[in-house]
């Protein structure tokens, strides 16, 4: 087994999954927001809600399409690069991912089609129902992914037979407590992503003095939603910390930059971990018992330090340590922005406060950065295990994979992804720059549920219609 092929496989997985998560986290939030908009449109009949709905549906289409394309790769990568993992954990991970794929297909196949075709063909309540079903479908998709990943973090409900994980209790796998703190955390993160993208777009239009009614609705709703959700998100983040501390002490020690066992423990706010000398440089600390309070909800609990964990079970310390702080930093910035913005909006002063509008406009990367660094914390912090405590990452990689093959594949993925990402974001940017259309939304020709991105076509396909055979 070649160490370099292992490292390259890890980089490749990190690269492709990081690229992928950008789109689902955006579309899950957006689908929920579309449901809210459609409800408001039906309840109030205010045209602006309808205009905003149609506008964001187009953006949803492009982002959804890019998510599907980059998701196909994930279905193969477990087998190509992690053949040992997919073989021995396949009996558990395979069915979970099958449920994910099938759920996603159901969503794409049925209700998304209604969303695109149907406004004129179905009654309003059914259109709303379909929107809600699309939101529910994306949520289910995320749920299965979180069940799968949570099982890798805290494996349960299985027995080992001939070196393979054999499931013997699916309820334990699906309904364990770890899933139920991690899944809401991810879901809320997606909602916040949607909220900040909407608020930032609204702020941009206010600054450009365009789309008066629509921009104010986007700004107010985006920030208002974030103001409510952000504290809940912090609470679930805290619950996640408790699970990490209970089940994965090595990850917690790395996140906290804690080298020695402490009872009660202090809390490192910021530092530069010096792994070689096993200490922190430039540390800013809170005294005990703040560490115990944050990690264990206790004034007296003892917390594990890295020194009492065998070196071969250490995760890389620096990545989880900094990634976690970047995530929390983004979260606090979003909280401040959402609360201040909502307060000013309540006092009807937000639209005249240009600095805050600029800040809101520029805030849209924050939720993405928070999600990506959060996942870095979770996944790098789980190392050196791929199935925590049971299967090491180094033993899970395809044994005969060479560094050369892995280099070639990584280069292919980087160039193809860079290429399509460039065009994809450019097309989304262009849609947002053009803004919502005032005239009633017409479905372009040949748009089908399987081609979500065609909603945003500038020029319809040159062949306009189908005739039924025999006509």
């Amino acid at each position, binding site marked *: 087994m070649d160490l370099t092929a292992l490292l390259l496989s890890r980089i490749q997985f990190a690269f492709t999954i990081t690229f992928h998560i950008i789109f689902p986290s955006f579309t899950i939030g957006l689908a929920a927001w579309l449901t809210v908009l459609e409800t408001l449109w039906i309840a109030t009949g205010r045209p602006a809600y309808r205009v905003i709905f149609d506008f964001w549906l187009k953006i949803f289409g492009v982002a959804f*399409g890019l998510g599907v*394309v980059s998701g*196909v*790769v994930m*279905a*193969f990568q*477990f*087998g*190509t*690069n992690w*053949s040992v993992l*997919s*073989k021995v954990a*396949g*009996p*558990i*991970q*395979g*069915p979970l*991912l*099958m*449920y994910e*794929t*099938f759920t996603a*297909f*159901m969503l794409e*196949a*049925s209700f998304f089609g209604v969303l695109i075709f149907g406004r004129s063909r179905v009654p309003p309540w059914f259109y709303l129902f379909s929107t809600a079903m699309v939101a529910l479908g994306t949520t289910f998709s995320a749920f299965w992914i979180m069940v799968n990943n949570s099982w890798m973090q805290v494996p349960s409900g299985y027995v080992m037979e001939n070196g393979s994980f*054999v*499931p*013997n209790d699916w309820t334990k796998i699906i309904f364990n407590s770890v899933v139920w703190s991690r899944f809401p955390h991810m879901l809320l993160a997606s909602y916040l992503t949607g909220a900040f993208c909407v608020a930032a777009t609204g702020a941009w239009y206010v600054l450009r003095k365009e789309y008066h009614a629509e921009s104010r609705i986007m700004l107010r709703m985006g920030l208002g939603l974030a103001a409510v959700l952000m504290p809940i998100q912090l609470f679930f983040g805290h619950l996640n910390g408790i699970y990490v501390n209970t089940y994965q002490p090595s990850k917690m020690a790395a996140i906290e930059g804690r080298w020695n066992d402490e009872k009660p423990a202090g809390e490192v706010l910021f530092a530069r971990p010096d792994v070689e000398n096993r200490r922190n440089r430039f540390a800013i600390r809170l005294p005990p018992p703040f560490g115990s309070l944050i990690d264990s909800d206790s004034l007296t609990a003892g917390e594990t330090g890295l020194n009492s964990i065998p070196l071969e079970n250490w995760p890389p310390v620096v990545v989880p340590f900094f990634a976690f702080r970047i995530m929390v930093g983004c979260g606090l910035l979003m909280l401040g922005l959402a609360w201040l913005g909502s307060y000013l909006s309540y006092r009807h002063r937000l639209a005249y406060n240009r600095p805050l509008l600029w800040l809101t406009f520029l805030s849209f990367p924050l939720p993405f950065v928070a999600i990506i660094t959060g996942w870095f914390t979770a996944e790098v912090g789980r190392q050196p295990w791929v199935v925590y405590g049971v299967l090491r990452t180094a033993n899970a990689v395809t*044994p*005969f994979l*060479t560094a050369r*093959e892995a280099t*070639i*594949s990584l280069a*292919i*993925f980087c160039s193809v992804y860079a290429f*399509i990402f460039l*065009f*994809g974001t450019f*097309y989304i940017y262009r849609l947002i720059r053009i803004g919502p259309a005032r005239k009633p939304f017409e479905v372009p020709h*040949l748009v*089908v549920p*399987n*081609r979500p991105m*065609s909603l*945003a076509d*500038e020029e319809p*396909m*040159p*062949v*306009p*219609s*189908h*005739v039924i*055979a*025999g*006509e």
Partner: protein
Amino acid sequence: MVMFWVSLLAISILLYVLLDGVDLGVGLLFGLSNGEARRGAMLSAVAPIWDGNETWLVVTAVILWGAFPLVYATLLSAFYLPLIVMLAGLILRGVAFEFRYKTQRLRWIWDLSFAGGSLIATFIQGVTVGALVEGLQFTNGEYSGGAVGWLTPFTVLCGIGLCLGYALLGACWLVRKCEGEVRDIARRQIPVLAVGVLAFLVVVFAYALAENLPILHRWIDRPYLFVFPAIGAIAATVLALSVLNHNDYLPFHMVALIFMSAFGTLALSFWPYMIPFVITVDQAAAPQSSLVFMFWGCGVIVFPLMLIYTLVSYSVFRGKVWASGGYGH
């Protein structure tokens, strides 16, 4: 339970080959065509269906992983480079559909990636089947053929063969879906491609004889397998007649039948092996608890719904696409 998942897997693979074979084949012919009018018509003949077709590849992958993890792990890792190149090809082809009409100036980029992506993906699928027929190198149940163990003259031949085959399927689809110039050119392409496929089959058979491939012994053991080539031969005859009679609908069905008989031949000569002649179906199957867990949700409910959905979406887009006035002149 194992047989249930074997059948679902077989249906998924066959559907993938037949359905995505159509749009990959059209992609290949697209590379040979010129003129925006023709290209536009060819694209619209497959635009509404390509993504749904490709879904069956993902369905195949997750059924393999969930129900036959050993085969999933072994095959995907053995075909490391070709699979990743194929995925890149499929991605490029897929986004080409979407991005082509969002630009005028850069349209050539997407045309290139549409044709190129189709070519790469098709060629690699052919190579993969060829490598399975020829037999991959295994030591103690683990692949040991190296990075390019799948690359031999025989597999390259199979890659070219599948390009011809998909192109034939694509041409028949165009005859069925289009009118005017596009249909006429496609109809002229059918005999050329069909003769190409026939020549390919003869060469493959000769090669198998010369190299004494293990799969040949299955044929001697199981003479009933010759039913499939017989069906194929009848279908080929009907194909030739229908092209001569300028029938628009029969050729596609006949080529589909030829593909099905080829699939049946391969599947039954492999049986009970999934990777010939190393891993059998029973060795590869996931534990009962996994198969049962998937059975109720995915197997009994969602999979039939997916089949129905495929049927419905094809019937929505049945009939000819036609070029309207105001375009192409």
